[in-house]
């Protein structure tokens, strides 16, 4: 067993006033506003790493006090590993994985988790599938027993698969009424073209064609200890927890066959143009803009994150100030970097009323080009770095967030120390690096633009941009 020391970065002793706003139009700080106090060092959690003899990776964060335990299980191989003629199969797999084992039916499984104080949730991502549950600490070992049963012995009963197929078909119809679902699906399709990352959901054809046997085969191939991490965070001692995990999952064996195929890096040649998803009756246009950004393991990832915060990631960002607080075009605009193992996507979102569809795109593209052609102010840089650092300290108080974050680090091949180090990396990002990230990732000419809404509104208002407009599904 290897014990990782907590990462401690020390910013103590800094006594700073919120920096004077140098940007034009910004107001002076109130003269009586108290200064920030000295920053208390943020300690990343101690992560105890262990590998069982069968290859299962176990990361544990022991935190006394709050009497719950959160488990996150990530298994390599997600939607990008689904057969080409079965898009979204992983979603159906995660719907049905807890619907029966050799010894328990679906109801017994749900009730066993409920008795521990939890409810198992699962999701299929591009590169992995994930199962999460949080329970009362006193019953964590019982949860492990049920969880291991699901991971090792799921049977995918024919009747449960039939029900899940029928319900997923209707749920897909229900989702297709939502602008956000349509926008996300279209953006991935246009950004990634033939690459498996283009798939973000099931299709009716895929659902109709999938059999219980295909789910069983995908499960047998992917769910194996050497491709799985279990993260436990909460109120326990690592020794007994490791023993409980060994007892529950130590007997899990790795099959002889080869695991899910790895995913190639996508070619980064996303089209610059508008992809119009017609949606009758829309009173808003939902925009999604995407461009390739850095991988999480890239040297300039943190610089790009800081640039994104300045551009659209914070409430006090340029984009929010412009199209919400100044112009009132939208309620909840924003931007972030969406990470997959082999691709990062800088993504911008805004839903705007029909009448300001063209005006809003104009501002979004302007703010992107501003990032690409001018430098951030020192105040913006300081604020963004402090924001990204502080927000992590807040988020990682939630044990589920720590569990989920550690699992996702493992999936992309990063060590658990990253959880504590990412904040210190952000703090050491320089002005020049952020400036460079802005110039590299933000030019509006790199953007694939998806617009969901009334076809005539979008066509008419986006005409002056001179971009090709392609109606898509």
């Amino acid at each position, binding site marked *: 067993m290897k014990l990782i020391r907590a990462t401690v970065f020390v910013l103590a002793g800094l006594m700073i006033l*919120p920096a004077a*706003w140098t940007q034009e139009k*910004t*107001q002076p*700080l109130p003269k009586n506003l108290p200064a*920030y*106090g000295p*920053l208390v060092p943020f300690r990343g959690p101690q992560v105890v790493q262990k590998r069982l003899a069968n290859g299962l990776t176990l990361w544990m964060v022991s*935190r*006394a*006090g*709050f*009497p*719950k335990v959160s488990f996150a299980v990530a298994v390599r191989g997600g939607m990008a590993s689904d057969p080409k003629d079965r898009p979204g199969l992983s979603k159906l797999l995660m719907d049905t994985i*807890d619907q029966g084992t050799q010894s328990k039916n679906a*109801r017994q499984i*749900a009730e066993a*988790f*409920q008795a*521990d*104080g939890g*409810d198992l949730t699962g999701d299929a991502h591009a590169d992995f599938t994930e199962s999460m549950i*949080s329970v*009362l*600490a*006193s019953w964590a*070992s*019982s949860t492990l027993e049920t969880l291991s049963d699901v991971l090792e012995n799921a049977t995918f009963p024919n009747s449960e698969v039939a029900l899940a197929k029928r*319900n997923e078909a209707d*749920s897909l*119809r*229900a989702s297709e*009424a939502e602008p956000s679902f349509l926008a996300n699906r279209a953006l991935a399709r246009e950004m990634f073209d033939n690459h498996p990352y283009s798939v973000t959901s099931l299709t009716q054809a895929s659902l109709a064609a999938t059999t219980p046997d295909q789910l069983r085969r995908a499960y047998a191939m992917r769910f194996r200890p050497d491709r799985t991490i279990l993260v436990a965070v909460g*109120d326990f*001692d690592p020794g007994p*927890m490791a023993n*409980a995990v060994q007892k529950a999952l130590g007997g899990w064996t790795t099959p002889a066959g080869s695991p899910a195929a790895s995913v190639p890096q996508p070619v980064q040649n996303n089209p610059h143009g508008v992809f119009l998803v017609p949606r009758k009756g829309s009173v*808003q246009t939902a925009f999604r803009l995407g461009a390739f950004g850095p991988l999480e393991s890239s040297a300039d990832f943190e610089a790009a994150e800081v640039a994104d915060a300045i551009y659209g990631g*914070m*409430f*006090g960002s340029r984009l929010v*100030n412009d199209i919400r*607080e100044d112009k*009132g*075009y939208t*309620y*909840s605009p924003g931007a972030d970097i969406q990470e997959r193992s082999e691709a990062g996507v800088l993504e911008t979102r805004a*839903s*705007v*009323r029909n009448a300001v569809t063209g005006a809003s795109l104009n501002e979004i593209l302007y703010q992107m080009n501003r990032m690409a052609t001018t430098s951030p102010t020192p105040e913006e840089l300081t604020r963004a770095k*402090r*924001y990204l*650092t*502080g*927000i992590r*300290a*807040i988020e*990682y*108080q939630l*044990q589920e967030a720590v569990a989920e974050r550690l699992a996702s680090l493992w999936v992309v091949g990063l060590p658990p120390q990253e959880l504590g180090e990412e904040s210190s990396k952000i703090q050491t990002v320089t002005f020049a690096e952020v400036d460079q990230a802005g110039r590299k990732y933000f030019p509006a000419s790199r953007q694939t633009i998806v617009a969901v809404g009334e076809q005539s509104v979008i066509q008419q208002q986006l005409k002056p941009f001179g971009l090709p407009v392609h109606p898509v599904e």
Partner: protein
Amino acid sequence: MKKLNALLLPLVFSSLLVAAPATPPEWKVPLAVKTLDNGLTVVVSRDDSAPTFGLCIAYGIGFRLEPKGRTGFAHLFEHMMFEGTPEARKGIFDRVVEGGGGFTNGDTRFDFTEYIESAPVSALNPALWLEADRLKGLDFSVANLNNQRNVVEEEVRDNVLNQPYGSFYWLDLPQKAFNRYPNAHNFYGDFKDLDAANIGDVRKFFETYHAPNNAVLAVVGDVTPEEVFQKAQQYFDSIPRRAVPAKPDVEEAPQKAERCSVEEDKLARVPALAVGYRMPPRTSPDAIVGAVVGEMLQNGQASLLYQALVKRKKVALEVDGGVNWPLGTPFEYGGPTLMTSFIVYPPKVSERDVLTAYDGVIQNLAAHGASQAELQRIRAKMRSDWYAELEIPVERASVISHFTLLDGDPGRVNKIPDEIAQVTSDQIMTFCRKYLVDTNRTIISRVPETLMGKTVNDAKGGRP
């Protein structure tokens, strides 16, 4: 975290990790309360597990008391609280909090409006100063009101007008279930009312309800009660107490008959329905039973409605709901409220079949109550969920401020799991027979435009 637990519990429970003890963990949060001379109640819960704080200041004003002809105003006003003061102009609030490493937000609910911040403790002083500053007075800028009117109308489009189902299960259901304006109007606001709101309304609403004696400040995190009390005194003490209107009577006459209606949905492709039963007041001994019944029926995959409607009868795609859902926990309401069920069901299934299955579950619970095993499970789940509500400082501050505002008793946050544990099967049966009856409920059937016709007849025919 808590003195006792930090030392004792890990040892006890870890050693029992494999043996699965029969008793759940007991966990209580520390609380210290002080009321300033101007009536501001300050509650502090220390939690030094991370060098951060969460802060919530809740005011005793929500949707219910917004003026007639000004539907949606309480929420529009909440936006105006971020639009600057004579001292700290628009934009300063967010810049200072985000520059301090944190975030800020606001929420409007039926009986209160809350403002939250969370950040590293190094930003506590400026955050408290800014909260006190905006309680002294706002900027009352017409330009900023016009801007936020647009933003709020965009929020309504985003969450209601451009979405399938349009949040009908919380926006429309109370309007059908209740009779009186405070409980039965459009809480997000009709656009004509939002458009009519003027800066005089903002000023009057501010001056009427935003007084220290109508507020609770809760701070949770790596802070001591003494330092928070001292800072609250320093920043808030100069704000004078003001007369706040007595809480008006918002009670409803008892419902006599089931209410059914149909709404056409231009955007949805799959039908849905919402059922709302009127609940007892929060102070009634029945209220805690209602909370348990609501969770037994619709909390997660093991719940009675999920198991019956989605799994056994195969008449629903999803079931969600609860008491005071989705705007809060079953313990945070101060006037007439509902236990709501929101059900999305396959287009090929008739609404009649969904309701038949639904009624079967209710009738079975009323007739047979809950087994000991079922009670044990729901107690564990609700204890676990309740602890989750209190896990991180900003959420704990929020819950504490609501309980203090509604009950004057922040200590109740530590009693909820034990209150739940005392609910019996007999009480559950009695509750179902008294409250979960047809004459006490309202049903809205939400039908996609393309399916109007066949389902309408079902709904008009009333109930099976």
